[in-house]
């Protein structure tokens, strides 16, 4: 008995020492003054101190929480051998179903193909492959694509320099990203969310541009019921892009979208007036409804631009099937990535480029930000990139063959810049200008270095917590823990006297151990986690109460103090064990199903329950034994 208790006592003392050691960094971090923390930061020790302290969840320290979903329909479309209309329409259908159902994407895909009675091997895998074989292949492709995306996102975030980011895969196709301390969502998302597909595409000649715009204009005018030919005496005279230059801004007036699309086609966004108002020149609008939406902006060094108010309408027109057929099959419209201003009006440039890319970012080996030194770009950030050997060969050929043509640098289907090719570039080095801010350039350089994602990713969940809310939660959490504890401690002391003091000691020990475990094993403390600690305080005394009530019962039957204590502990054990196992089981379920913050609750609750069993059954027992072994007690203060 003695030897056993000696061992237990040593064990408990060792635990206390360990707990204090484990909690030291947390204490240190909490009590640091700003000067001290700056000094530690300079010495590079702050990070290691942070790592050893209790890790706070985003809801307590502030930060961003993003869930991305890999666009699998897009991925399988890219993988398809031939992308005919039927495939596009089936994929569109799966996409719609995917938005409303919780079913697996590939299951939906399989079903949609079965409904159409089309074998999957028409698009994927080898001819003659069974549907299930093709599906397996697609599944593997999807898993790999998600893993590769995850890796790339991790690289991007690491290079961006967020401290302690957490990036993990959830439920096959989702990527959960936690960025502590990041409070500017736009910057982070510009870095993470973009596919970063870089393409070099040749611009179409101006003649082609003019012709396409004219064609669209006529078609649109016709569909609005205005027959230009009938009203114009000279049918050869049509308004061209160049003519728009003459139009003065003062002629612009605001019309509604309905006026453009006619009565029946109303934009079905949950839209506000601001969204549907267009900026057009009334005089030319009647005859040239499309050109009226555009502006000549050569004064700003851009050919054709669109006031931002009109962008949606232009997109809408360009999407129309009858209009699509007017665009040459080898060409496409693209917007510039940056907007610009002339006076008060904001514009976005419109380009028409070759569909086929001459070169993609796949060949990039390095990308760095520099400051422009030309007359034009002095002081502006730009990104210098280097291509690998095969990329350099292609680049050399393309630039050599297209001298004095413009090459658009396209990032995720937006034109970053479209410089004129002045010389053949043989060394595979190039430069991207017109990026805008320094931050933007830095992010561009990062994504170019890391490379593009296999498939686009989309945000499905986004949460940000400001630092002050977290601070408030911590202070108020501490308050409620302290107040709850004081009440419980007072109650136990009054109700169980000496035994209550022992239980209180166990309770405090319990709390210290719980925090030490959190710190040592890197568990994350969240706001619900704080609630879990509070709850643990309440429930931790339960085991003691059970034992004490049992001891009192035994004493009432006339047993000696020692015998009562022994019987009390041994009889209460079963009940304590069963009761705590059920709590643990629910915590386990919570951990399995919950998201971040709720997981934190499950963690503190489970650790609390386990520790409280230990403190109530072992620690208090040792103390009781110690007291009763010194002298024979006839009365127990309980």
């Amino acid at each position, binding site marked *: 008995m003695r030897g056993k208790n000696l061992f237990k006592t040593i064990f408990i003392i060792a635990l206390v020492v360990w707990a204090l050691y484990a909690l030291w960094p947390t204490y240190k971090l909490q009590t640091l003054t700003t000067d001290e923390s700056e000094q530690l930061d300079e010495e590079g020790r702050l990070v290691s101190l942070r790592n050893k302290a209790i890790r706070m969840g985003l809801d307590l320290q502030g930060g961003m929480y993003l869930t991305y979903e890999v666009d699998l329909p897009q991925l399988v479309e890219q993988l398809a051998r031939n992308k005919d209309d039927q495939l596009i329409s089936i994929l569109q259908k799966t996409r719609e179903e995917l938005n409303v159902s919780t079913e697996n994407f590939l299951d939906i895909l399989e079903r949609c193909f079965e409904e159409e009675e089309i074998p999957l091997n028409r698009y994927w895998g080898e001819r003659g492959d069974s549907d299930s074989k093709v599906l397996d292949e697609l599944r593997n492709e999807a898993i790999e694509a998600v893993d590769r995306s995850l890796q790339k996102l991790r690289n991007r975030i690491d290079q961006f320099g967020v401290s302690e980011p957490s990036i993990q895969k959830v439920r096959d196709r989702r990527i959960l990203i936690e960025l502590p301390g990041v409070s500017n969502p736009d910057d982070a*998302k510009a870095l993470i969310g973009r596919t970063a597909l870089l393409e070099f595409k040749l611009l179409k000649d101006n003649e082609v541009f003019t012709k396409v715009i004219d064609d669209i204009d006529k078609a649109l005018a016709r569909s609005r019921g205005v027959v230009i030919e009938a009203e114009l005496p000279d049918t050869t005279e049509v308004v061209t892009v160049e003519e728009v230059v003459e139009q003065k801004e003062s002629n612009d007036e605001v019309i509604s979208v309905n006026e453009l699309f006619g009565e029946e086609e109303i934009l079905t966004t949950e839209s506000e007036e601001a969204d549907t108002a267009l900026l057009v020149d009334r005089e030319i609008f009647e005859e040239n409804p499309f050109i009226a939406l555009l502006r000549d902006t050569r004064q700003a060094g851009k050919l054709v631009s669109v006031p931002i108010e009109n962008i949606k309408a232009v997109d809408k027109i360009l999407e129309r099937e009858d209009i699509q057929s007017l665009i040459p099959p080898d060409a496409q419209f693209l917007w510039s990535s940056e907007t610009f201003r002339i006076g008060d009006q904001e514009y976005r440039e419109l380009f028409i480029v070759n569909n086929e890319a001459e070169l993609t970012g796949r060949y990039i080996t390095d990308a760095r930000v520099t400051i422009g030194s030309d007359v034009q770009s002095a002081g502006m950030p730009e990104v210098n990139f280097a291509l690998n050997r095969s990329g350099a060969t292609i680049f050399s050929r393309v630039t050599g063959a297209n001298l004095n043509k413009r090459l658009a640098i396209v990032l995720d289907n937006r034109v970053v810049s479209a410089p004129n090719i002045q010389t053949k570039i043989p060394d595979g080095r190039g430069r991207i200008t017109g990026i805008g801010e320094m931050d933007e350039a830095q992010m561009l350089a990062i994504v170019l270095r890391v490379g593009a994602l296999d498939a686009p990713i989309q945000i499905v969940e986004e949460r*940000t917590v400001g630092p002050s809310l977290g601070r408030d939660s911590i202070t108020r959490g501490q308050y409620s823990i302290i107040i709850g504890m004081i009440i419980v401690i007072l109650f136990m002391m009054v109700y169980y006297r000496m035994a209550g003091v022992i239980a209180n000691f166990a309770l405090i020990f319990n709390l210290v151990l719980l925090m030490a475990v959190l710190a040592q094993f890197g568990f994350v403390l969240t706001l619900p986690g704080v*609630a879990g600690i509070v709850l643990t305080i309440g429930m931790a005394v*339960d085991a003691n109460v*059970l034992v004490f*009530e049992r001891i009192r019962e035994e004493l009432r039957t006339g047993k000696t103090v020692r015998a009562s204590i022994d019987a009390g502990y041994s009889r209460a054990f079963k009940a304590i064990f069963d009761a705590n196992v059920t709590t643990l089981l629910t915590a386990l*379920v919570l951990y399995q199903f919950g998201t971040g913050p709720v997981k934190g609750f499950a963690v503190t609750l489970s650790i609390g329950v386990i520790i409280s069993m230990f403190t109530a059954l072992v620690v208090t027992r040792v103390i009781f034994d110690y007291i009763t072994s010194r002298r024979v007690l006839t009365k127990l203060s309980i």
Partner: protein
Amino acid sequence: MQFLQSVHIDYISKRKKAYFISISLLIIGIVSYIVRGGPNYGIDFKGGTSILIEFEKTITTQDIRDALIPAGYGNSEIKSFGTQNQYIIYIGQQKELSASEMVGQIQQAISASITDVPYEILETDSVGPKIGQELRKAMVMAILIALLLMLIYIGWRFEFVFAVGAVIALFHDVLITLGIFILLNYELSLKEIAAFLTIVGYSMNDTIIVYDRIRENLKIYRSDDLNVILNRSINTTMSRTVITSLTTFVVVLSLFIFGSEVIKGFAFVMLVGIIIGTYSSIFVASPVVFEWQMRHGGRQKLKMAKKKR
């Protein structure tokens, strides 16, 4: 100091009254469910975007609405949150804009209109419609699995009939707590679900203490009638039940009063759940065992149970 040391209350014969109370509470819950059309789902489950914003001075929801109208967010749901001039702006699902774009627009609108009161955006949440749906499914699954695990564990450690009693008591607790939760129009989000699951664990805890004593007493008092044993077990564990409930209740109350606004709903579920859970472990869990035994084989089966263990 001691109280409830020697109570001799006949709970089993009072069970009809308890049933009446329980059923009344359940009906209140069902009525409020129907009247309110289900729980008031939070952003986690219904999706959309919500913004928690704090102003430095007092301001009305109308001021905020007026500020949002020009930006086209005039029909957002705006409500005050907590006490420190905090407001939640809720915008339903939007197709075309990302959450941060929306937050940016709203920030601009407020800065433009409410120029004299500084403010701070404390928190933004944006949840896609599918995520909400999935979470709802996952949470229902979680609660059902937790209940199933309880059923299995109790069935294994005790007799099957105890498992039935315990799980009925659990359903009873969760449903009544949910009813009161809906009645008072609290918002149901993930944290509250966590609280409901904790109620499952907590109420189970309470019930097991009583069952453990019944298990023990069945061995000791072989000749006594079942209702006598049940009553004795409940009575002897009464002081423990009350004390533990009290300490837990007090700390959760401290969380409810002093804790962060964000955790209020959670603490509320716990507060109600502790009361209902304590009540059910006394007035529901054991009477159900009694009821079941009276109908299916009387005391016979439980006597067998005694031999087995």
